[in-house]
């Protein structure tokens, strides 16, 4: 079939106003349903005519999914809250600035105006082989084109691969892991709560998805516990251009200190694996230190242990090492 781009194929549009209705629609249409949040990822898929859902459920009209609320011991962010709202929210800026910072690093102002936190963490990978509609593993085929010896894989993963070598593109994902956020996923069976780092899954677990969410699921809220409020944060995203571009590698870190000593740390890196990687070993390493140069260097080296670059992405190994170093150094 000849390839046509930039024409959205027809679908049914549902615009529920409650979560319950949305869930029912998803239940009804199962694999044929598509959840539309901000839509920036969705429209790309539609316009490429690679994904052709028959029923699109637009969450834009569900008020209960929007907004940032103070809840007991933390903040709750509705999954449909725009990235701009997060970027500008005073509570987030003061206590969880890393989340605002990460949101601010997303694409462009217009995309942040429209894009949502839920959409940002749920978006699909940007592997260009996969996005071109090639029949790769992730698309149900029998090969990974990006890992072929001659393939163009500058933006692909250096760890966590399992047949597929794509990376998670989300800017906010590592920040949410750093603040130990919880993702509340609902379906008709009720809500489930996932730690942010468990929300994202690799191809070993399911090669066709980036998160735990299955077709009937909806990410409704993101809860940020107060445990990491006002910690020392570090966020950095390396990209080719100052706007639009997805990360090559990004790092998000939270440190809780007593005096000069790091009591506890949470560090996550994105752009290096099919899922944002939480660096548990590095966190243990830096605990009890002051984030001095030697620790930072050791942390960097530890972070890249086991990295297996592809032909064109070996640079990500030192880049990841250096970003982890910088994150740790930022404390000192």
């Amino acid at each position, binding site marked *: 079939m000849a390839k046509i781009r930039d024409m*959205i*194929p*027809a*679908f049914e*549009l*549902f*615009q529920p106003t409650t979560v319950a209705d949305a869930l029912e629609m998803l239940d009804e249409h199962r694999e044929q349903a598509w959840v539309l949040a901000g*839509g920036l990822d969705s429209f790309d898929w539609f316009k490429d005519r690679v994904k052709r859902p028959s029923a699109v459920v637009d969450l834009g009209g569900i008020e209960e999914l929007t907004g940032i609320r103070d809840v007991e011991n933390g903040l709750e962010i509705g999954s449909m809250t725009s990235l701009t709202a997060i970027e500008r929210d005073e509570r987030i800026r003061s206590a969880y600035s890393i989340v605002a910072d990460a949101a601010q690093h997303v694409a462009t102002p*217009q995309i942040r105006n429209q894009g949502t936190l839920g959409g940002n963490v749920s978006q699909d990978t940007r592997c260009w082989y996969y996005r071109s509609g090639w029949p790769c593993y992730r698309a149900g085929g029998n090969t990974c084109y990006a890992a072929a010896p001659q393939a163009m894989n500058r933006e692909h993963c250096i760890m966590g691969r399992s047949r597929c070598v794509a990376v998670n593109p989300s800017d906010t994902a590592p920040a949410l892991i750093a603040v130990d956020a919880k993702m509340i996923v609902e379906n008709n069976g009720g809500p489930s709560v996932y730690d942010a780092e468990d929300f994202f899954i690799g191809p070993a677990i399911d090669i066709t998805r980036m998160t735990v969410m299955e077709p009937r699921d909806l990410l409704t809220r993101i809860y940020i516990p107060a445990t990491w409020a006002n910690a020392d944060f570090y966020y950095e995203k390396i990209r080719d251009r*100052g706007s639009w571009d997805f990360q090559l590698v990004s790092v998000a870190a939270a440190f809780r200190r007593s005096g000069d000593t790091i009591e506890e740390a949470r560090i996550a890196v994105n752009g290096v694996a099919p899922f944002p990687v939480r660096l548990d070993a590095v966190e243990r390493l830096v605990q009890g230190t002051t984030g001095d140069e030697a620790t930072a260097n050791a942390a960097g080296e530890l972070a890249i242990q086991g990295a297996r670059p592809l032909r064109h992405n070996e640079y990500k190994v030192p880049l990841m090492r250096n970003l982890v170093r910088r994150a740790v150094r930022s404390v000192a």
Partner: protein
Amino acid sequence: MDQAESSTVLEQKYSRRTFIKGVIATGATASSAGYLFRGSPLLGAATYQTATERLITLNVNGQERRVDVLPHETLAMTLRYKLGLTGTKLGCDRAECGACTVLIDGVSQYGCSMLTHQVRGRAVTTIEGLEDADTGELSIVQQAVMEEGGFQCAFCAPGFIMAMTEMIEVNPNPTREEARIALSGNLCRCADYDKILTCAMRAAELARSV
């Protein structure tokens, strides 16, 4: 199942839900201004009835416009091909250039990357809506651009001007750096960025003096 029947079933099925109810188009009649889209029977195998009504009212540039909109139609297409508002440009149709930037309730968004049905009940402002409808007086941003001789090929201009319009509302006293960030969702291939920035700063200045 013929279409009329299926739509009835759909209506019944979802009637208890809080839909915005209305006429569900059942025929193949294309919109009279439907340059781009037509009725569903032509769309190959996927001939769905939509749960959203097709004939909707949009608030565009302060006017209520009645328009027949398919479920999968983007706002930029509706504006350009159904409402004749060709000032909103399609540079990439992929949220990658900003030429289609419009204001939705005063917030800048890419018209190419939202469904028209998503802006029902919200105020859409396009480049055509910036001038005073009665006097033809240019908006502050437009005046600033005139003064500074902004833009080269200007295909990006409508988008930039919409982004500037939002900027002077949100941050009437921007630094050049802040203005740069505010406008970073718009691409200019002539790379007339310096002059555009000067226009934006001038616009903010004019806005402050009003």
